């Protein structure tokens, strides 16, 4: 098979055929064989993702081994990675339900993840400080609205000034949700446009393909 067929034409055709199959199943009453095929295709996605995960882990491990071997700055962190990978990997291979493996997950991975997640509170605060400055009238509107909604959510806000609760609720229910709905409509249109371009094979950079175009926009 030619290089173009395997690298460009085949992936585009497969994308279009499988994509259209999914669309047909969503809108139309289809024979059971189509539904079964689609279920199988969706399982393939999970399997391909798992294979890609193995590849990613393999490359990450190579990168760390190389860094530790070449004694590059921070090489000792790579040793920690290699040790952790070896221990967790070995325990996982014995059994993922094995007590020691689950202990690592419940007592190390999970709390570290939660601790990192908690960083959001601090960064949101400093980001809010950066953003909520009345530099112009638009920023001032945002500042006022943000303040009203914040006071509405705090118990003290309603206690000090009771009308702030319905005002805050009105901001959330009407101007805010209207804006979001507008965005959602636009995003849906954008997604459909992207899908059409991909199905037609006009947009194929996601396949790692970038052909020189003759036309200029």
């Amino acid at each position, binding site marked *: 098979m030619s290089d173009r067929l395997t690298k460009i034409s085949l992936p585009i055709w497969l994308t279009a055929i499988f994509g259209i199959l999914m669309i047909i199943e969503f*809108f139309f009453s289809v024979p059971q064989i189509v539904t079964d095929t689609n279920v199988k295709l969706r399982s393939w*996605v999970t399997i391909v993702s798992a294979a*890609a995960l193995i590849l990613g882990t393999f*490359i*990450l491990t190579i990168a760390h081994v190389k860094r530790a071997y070449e004694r590059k700055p921070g090489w000792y962190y790579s040793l920690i990675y290699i040790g952790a990978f070896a221990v967790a990997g070995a325990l996982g291979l014995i059994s993922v339900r094995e007590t020691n493996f689950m202990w690592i997950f419940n007592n190390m991975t999970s709390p570290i993840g939660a601790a*990192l997640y908690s960083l*959001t509170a601090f960064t949101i605060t400093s980001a809010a400080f950066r953003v909520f400055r009345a530099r112009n009238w638009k920023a001032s509107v945002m500042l006022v609205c943000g303040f009203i909604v914040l006071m509405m959510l705090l118990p003290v806000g309603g206690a000090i000034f009771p009308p702030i609760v319905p005002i805050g609720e009105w901001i959330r229910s009407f101007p805010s949700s209207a804006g979001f709905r507008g965005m959602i409509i*636009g*995003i849906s249109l954008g997604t459909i446009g992207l899908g059409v371009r991909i199905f037609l094979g006009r947009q194929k950079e996601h396949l790692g393909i970038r052909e020189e175009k003759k036309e200029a*926009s």
Partner: protein
Amino acid sequence: MVLILAGRLVSLVALIILVGAILYYIQRAMSGKIPKLRRLPAVDVIQEIVGRCVEMGRPVWYLFGSTDMTTPSILAPTVAAFQTLSYTARIAARLGAKLFVPLNQGLAYTMASDIVREAYVAENKLEDFDPLKTVMYLPSGADRMYIINHMWEEQVAGAFFLGSWYHEAVIYTENAAREGAVMLGGTDTTHNIPFLVAICDYSVIGEELYALGAYVSQDALQSSSLAGQDIGKYLAIIAILIGAILVTAGISLTEFFKLGW
């Protein structure tokens, strides 16, 4: 047997109209009639950010957010961000910028790796592409600490935050802002759009994320499809106006939709 599933007729008709409009404009472009489109400011910003990084001798980062491509709501913005990555990587290769693309999902990692490699090949700069460093797989969870730490350590001068962004958007953009990086942000995750718009120097809002890939492709046929999307916007505006008038007049549309259309 019912051919169309209950409650999906209206969506199907809307989809057919929209796809028809997009195909119509692509067809027109093929016959030489290119529609006039508003140029997204973000297109010029990409080169500006990468150029700034080269001048300062500091790296440029391209971050994706969530990249779990088995989730449909994440898949679409991630693919859209891939289109822009291809363009950005090519500029980075051309100008000699140090590009870094971290990803936290295996499938997205392999795709991004291919895209960036192809961009370096296209610019005859394959020697500048490091398969272990330019695009890096960082397991989900561990990626946050690595990214924050290296943002400070490497003094990132420019960063792109495109794709499906959740709470990490605030953590990363705020750290990059403190480091003085110039940022372009864009996501279709509605609750994080305000953060990216507020913190980033430049932003693409919602659907502009999808349009950006078509703009940077320099393919007239791709950008023509955006004119087709505008037909959908006009229809949505008309539907909203009719709906608002009917609701104001006390005519409920609930019964209409209960018919299973």
